[in-house]
């Protein structure tokens, strides 16, 4: 299945700011499961775009805008082909012993140790006890069950958590967005000594399926390493296994490794972040109506001395 993806991020500052420096992770990955056939990135005001590959193999584009500016717009456009999942995958399902051997052989520590967002807390421990989560049966089935249990125990509720919320916020309220679902699942899976990582990307929404996560936003889910099966995807927000509708952009230990955009600027300003995401099959006609735009506003900082300081640009939460 081939998709055309558009992802436009716009920052508006009032008054103007200067010396914006930005890094974006927007180029879909090319690997065994998908191919990024084309990718383009446009930045306004004009800037020199440079690219490198980070330590997880994600393409990172970066640029800087030294002069005064009120708007930064980053428009990414990609054509991606997602390969259908191998149907016989489950026959490779391994038992715990095999899995442990595999993990010990390879270099998976990064995805086993606690990371910035995905770390054990008291509330997580409570949830683990409640779900009676422990090694049993076979790893694949256990994670499939966990995927469903998380879907059922948490309400999907936008605007209840923020982009930098620790998992305890969602654990306490029992609701959140895909970013929270993913972080909670990662932390739980790592406690089972199964390597688990965060995937940032998009989900294609078909009309006939009711997904909890909305169209018009980026999405996040997890991948767990299950021996011979490799990295297997789970989407606890929508109670889905990884499928042909998941388009993978970047992988990391958690959101902190792979935010779609990250930047700093100098100047004191109120800022407004708006994000537009559209995912459509490549052969579909151009949609007449663009999906809604997500807008987040921030108040300016009050201290006058902060003019020369670097301010963090707002980040987009994955929904």
């Amino acid at each position, binding site marked *: 299945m081939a998709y055309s993806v558009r992802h436009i991020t716009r920052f508006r500052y009032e008054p103007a700011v200067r*010396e914006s*420096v930005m*890094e974006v992770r927007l180029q879909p990955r090319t690997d065994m499961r998908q191919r990024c056939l084309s990718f383009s990135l446009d930045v306004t005001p004009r800037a*020199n775009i*440079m690219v*490198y590959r*980070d*330590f997880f193999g994600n393409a990172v584009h*970066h640029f*800087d805008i*030294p002069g005064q500016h009120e708007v930064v717009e980053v428009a990414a456009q990609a054509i991606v082909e997602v390969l259908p999942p191998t149907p016989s995958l489950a026959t490779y399902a391994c038992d715990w012993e095999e899995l442990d051997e595999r993990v010990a052989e390879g*270099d998976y*520590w*990064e995805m086993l*140790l606690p990371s910035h967002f995905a770390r054990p807390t008291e509330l997580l421990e409570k949830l683990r006890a409640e779900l009676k989560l422990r090694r049993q049966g076979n790893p694949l089935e256990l994670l499939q069950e966990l995927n469903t249990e998380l879907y059922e125990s948490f309400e999907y509720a936008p605007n209840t958590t923020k982009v930098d919320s620790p998992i305890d916020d969602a654990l306490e309220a029992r609701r959140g967005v895909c970013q929270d679902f993913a972080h909670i699942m990662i932390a739980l899976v790592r406690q089972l000594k199964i390597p688990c990582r965060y995937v940032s990307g998009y989900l294609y929404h078909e009309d006939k399926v009711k997904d909890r996560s909305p169209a018009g936003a980026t999405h996040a889910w997890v991948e767990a390493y299950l021996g011979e099966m490799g990295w297997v995807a789970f989407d606890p927000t929508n109670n889905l296994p990884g499928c042909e509708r998941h388009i993978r952009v970047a992988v990391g230990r958690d959101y902190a490794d792979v935010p779609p955009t*990250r*930047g*700093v600027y100098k100047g004191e300003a109120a800022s407004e972040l708006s994000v537009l995401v559209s995912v459509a099959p490549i052969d579909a006609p151009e949609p007449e109506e663009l999906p809604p735009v997500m807008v987040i506003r921030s108040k300016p900082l009050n201290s006058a001395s902060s003019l*020369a*300081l*670097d301010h*963090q640009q707002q980040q987009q939460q994955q929904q």
Partner: protein
Amino acid sequence: MTATAQPSRIRVQPSFVRYQYETAYDEMFSAPGVPREHYQALHRTLLGMPQEELLKRQQAADLTFLHEGITFTVYGSKEGTEKIFPNDLVPRIIPSIEWAKIEKGLTQRLTALNMFLRDIYHEGRILSEGLIPRELVYSCKHFRREMRGLNVPRDTYVSICGTDLVRLPDGSFAVLEDNLRVPSGVSYMLANRKVLKRVFPTMFRDYGVWPVDHYPQALLATLRSLTPENCQYRQDPTTILLTPGVSNSAYFEHTFLAQQMGIELVEGRDLLVHDNVVYMRTTAGLRRVDVIYRRVDDDFLDPLCFRPDSILGVPGLFNAYRAGNVTLANAIGTGVADDKAVYAYVPEIIKFYLNEEAILPNVPTFLMTNGKHRNHVLQNLEKMVVKAVGESGGYGMLIGPHSTAQQREEFRARVLAEPRNYIAQPTLSLSCAPCLIDGEVESRHIDLRPYILMGEKVTLVPGGLTRVALRKGSLVVNSSQGGGSKDTWVLREGNGEDRVAKITSFERKAG
């Protein structure tokens, strides 16, 4: 308190009556009252000099430190945090033969540690061969995954190193810890020398001491030899010193070194990155920067890449670094090699990369992640020194013999909660050296921090910072914990014996 304030005291010359001979190695005396050969001349000078004269010289030295603003900052104290760095007048003397071994040992150690850093940020041979547990490296808070696959000029990650050595009771030197991030204190080494030369000019000359004054030039040459390949067409690379600013404990040193090297001292806000190139804002416009001697910790260098709340850094600096357009000295991510748990593996690291035995041994170290070690340590806490692995400067440690039961309980809980964060070592009796305390010579515990530079070649300035635990009986030499320092004399040849006659004649003249 001075001698003149005590009329009852008859003696006018300093004595060694209050000098305590301990079980620890004594730098000056081989037996009570019997000075070692290389200390004989100094011993005689001290005995031959009127106490009043010594006190005068100490005052003169203190004044110089005050006037030159040689200070350091103690964090976490409410009153004036900036203090004069206490200095002791009696030099510490190291014979050339001992220094030769230190020099060889430290060169070997730093060579191996640089190879280790290159390895863990590239192929990871030492990890895949199982010599060092992967978990130990990845769980180190100074491990920078961003550095993976990134090449640094000359494969030199640590080009400026300060290694802490201690002398064990048998007289041999051992490494207590490596400082591979932003080692400080070298300005005190230079200041001590400057003052001592003024206070004891003749004795200094006659002893035949290796100079240390060329350190700033050697440092500059080292930095310039690390100019990125991309910039090598440039005749005169721009080298700068990046400081966190006036509130940093070593700010004095930053200004001092920048001035001695004749390079710009800048803060993060003076720099900007455009199209992967670092520029310095000057009154004449932007100027390209090639080499940065940074005295800012990794975490604060680039808010885009590391701590986003850092206001000390330069956004985009890491990208310029990755692109090979600027050199940072030391490189980013060197802290993983001076992690105190990794320290325990250094002898094996040397063996692995160089196929040699370590010339300078480690001190015995217990890893708290090892259950057996942990039990042993927790049962003998009052005999142990427990240290947090990622800390330096004497913060976050427990000195067993000098601790209260409450402190021990606190550390027991901390170790059990986070075993990876702690190591323990048996309490070492650091060697003792004579120090001038209120006009009398007393013995105090000391260590030694030599500074090693690694660029095109390895440079060890003969000497280093001898740190003194000024509190009687104390084993903590860190300046932040009430330590001071003294000048370190490395002798050019022999052990000073041949010069004794000469100096005796000087004493007669002076007396």
